[in-house]
């Protein structure tokens, strides 16, 4: 009995530590959403909400892809190229014999396979993830350029209308992805991804297949990034071999805004999702207020540093008192 209560006490303490700072993040996100709704009441209509979530959806997916790896103690610089490759494959396979389902399967399998290969290299050959994904990003970009040297390809009109039309399908898909993530976390392997990131040696001694967890994390990350590419292709109605480039930096920025740390195990997926929402709202607000793209870069740089520095300074200030 006492063992049970002490383990639940430990669980509560760990959960509190993981959720620290999330309350403030929720408040900031809520404040920005209210500001947004006051400035542009259009978001409260079904069409406006749909458009807003469609802009957010690919960023949310790539942020999940990045946060998944950062929680596991890794990082990937291949997000952007994977998004581009997903878009290119979607745009080149959907007019084939297998049609749209064939295209979706092709995109998903490509993402999974590339992720798994990168993961296997990182986990089993023990090369640093940052360099492997850097080299991988050149290879993936090359493949995308060979498949589709210039923007083009074919996406059926009905698919674009379904995913990026006037209905909140993208938001529903995001809910489905999040529920699937929660379900995956309930499996031993899903929990193992967190555990291996927090303390690889401890996780290994507790029976977590650390290397397999890493390969699975990279494979899922590849899948999410490639699916984000599929959505971007549906949004723009064509494939573009370099369309994903900004997503690499934005995925890291959103995860960091959401409180995910670089050393693994620190942070939560809901924080990362909130971070991506915050970044998406900020980009939209600056766009609608008529900021030039240049000012967006400057503001983004300042916001990222501020988001990381303020909690650290608060912690140091509290410790001093």
């Amino acid at each position, binding site marked *: 009995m006492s063992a049970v209560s002490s383990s639940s006490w430990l669980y509560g303490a760990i959960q509190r530590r993981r959720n620290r700072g999330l309350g403030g993040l929720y408040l900031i996100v809520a404040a920005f959403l209210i500001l947004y709704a006051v400035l542009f009441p259009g978001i409260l209509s079904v069409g406006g909400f749909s458009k807003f979530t469609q802009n957010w959806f690919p960023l949310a997916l790539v942020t999940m892809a990045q946060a998944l790896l950062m929680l596991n103690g890794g*990082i990937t610089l291949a997000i952007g190229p994977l998004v581009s490759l997903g878009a290119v494959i979607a745009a080149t396979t959907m007019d084939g014999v297998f049609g749209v389902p064939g295209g979706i399967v092709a995109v998903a399998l490509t993402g999974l396979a590339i992720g798994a290969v990168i993961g296997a*290299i990182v986990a089993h*050959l*023990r*090369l*640093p993830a*940052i*360099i*492997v994904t*850097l*080299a*991988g*990003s*050149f*290879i*993936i*970009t*090359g*493949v*995308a*350029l*060979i498949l589709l*040297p210039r923007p083009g390809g074919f996406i059926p009109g009905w698919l674009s209308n379904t995913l990026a039309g006037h209905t909140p399908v993208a938001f529903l898909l995001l809910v489905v992805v999040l529920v699937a993530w929660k379900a995956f976390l309930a499996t031993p392997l899903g929990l193992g991804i967190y555990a291996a990131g927090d303390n690889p040696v401890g996780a290994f001694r507790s029976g977590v297949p650390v290397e397999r967890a890493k390969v699975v994390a990279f494979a899922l990350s590849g899948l999410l990034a490639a699916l984000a590419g599929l959505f971007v292709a549906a949004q723009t109605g064509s494939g573009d071999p370099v369309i994903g480039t900004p997503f690499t*930096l934005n995925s*890291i*920025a959103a995860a*960091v805004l959401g409180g995910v*740390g*670089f050393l693994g195990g620190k942070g939560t997926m809901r924080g990362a999702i909130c971070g991506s929402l915050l970044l998406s709202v900020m980009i939209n607000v600056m766009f609608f207020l008529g900021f030039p793209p*240049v*000012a*967006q*870069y*400057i503001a*983004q*740089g*300042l916001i*990222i*540093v501020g988001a*990381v*520095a303020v909690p*650290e*300074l608060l912690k*140091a200030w509290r410790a001093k008192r």
Partner: protein
Amino acid sequence: MSAVKSIFRNPPLLTFVLVALVWLIAGLTLRGFGAYGHLRYLLELAAVIGIAAAGQTLVILMGGIDLSVGAIITVTAILLPLISPAWDPTGLVGIALALAIATGIGFLNGAGAAYLRVPPIIMTLAMATFLQGLLVVVAGGSAVTVSNPAVILLGQGRPLGVPSGVLLWIVVSAVVLALIHRMPIGARFLAIGANPLAARLSGVSLTRNTLILYALSGFFAGLAGILVLGMNRQGYVGIGDPYLLTSIAAVVLGGTSILGGRGTYAGTIPGAILLVTTTALITVVNASPGWRSIMFGTLILALLLVSGREARR
């Protein structure tokens, strides 16, 4: 046999042997590769990467990383023609100002990492984003032509037949190697990279050394930016972008651990030459941009397998 084994244990030497092999094979099979002019050109290109990677090596040795190298190179290359005063016939004042700005940017990176406790990867990434925006405001997105005589001399001059960029690289190499291996401050950098807590408890100031290191990285990136500007005679937005990835790749190919604490600039030197040679060979094959990109990525991965592996846990 033991000689072969000792080569594999010594990453800088291994990278040197790789470069020698690649040059030998390419020189025997490709017409024009082994010509003195071509090899000199390769070294000239490697000098830019090597100088940018000097700061990167120091930062990585301390366990950090600098993702703003490319942005600092661009900033220096664009600002230098704009801030070189007309009354100064030598152009040295402009160079000094540009280097001061580059060092200042690096110092800000260090201040963010040391005082605000922002992880270096985020701090330098955010700095790169920030500079990218600032540059478009300052330069308006158009290319600027350099007329500064000292910069042109640096980029185009060839005292005794050796490009002055290569001479500059030799000086930088000597200084950095002495800094790491012959001076107390180098020992402090390595100590912080190996174990920050132990270093701090032994009386090494993390704040001070972080500030010095990122300022040095900014300085070397600025130096590389001036060299690139002299070689191209023009500065434009994006001129420094290729040097971010190549500077990190050169460090890792030279056998320096990305986790810090282990490695030497002596490995980065052949690493930079190896990278330039690979790129040159890929250009010779005359493939489409897609295939070129694939070959570059695959070669970096293959080279990593030989020289960049982390020790088994």
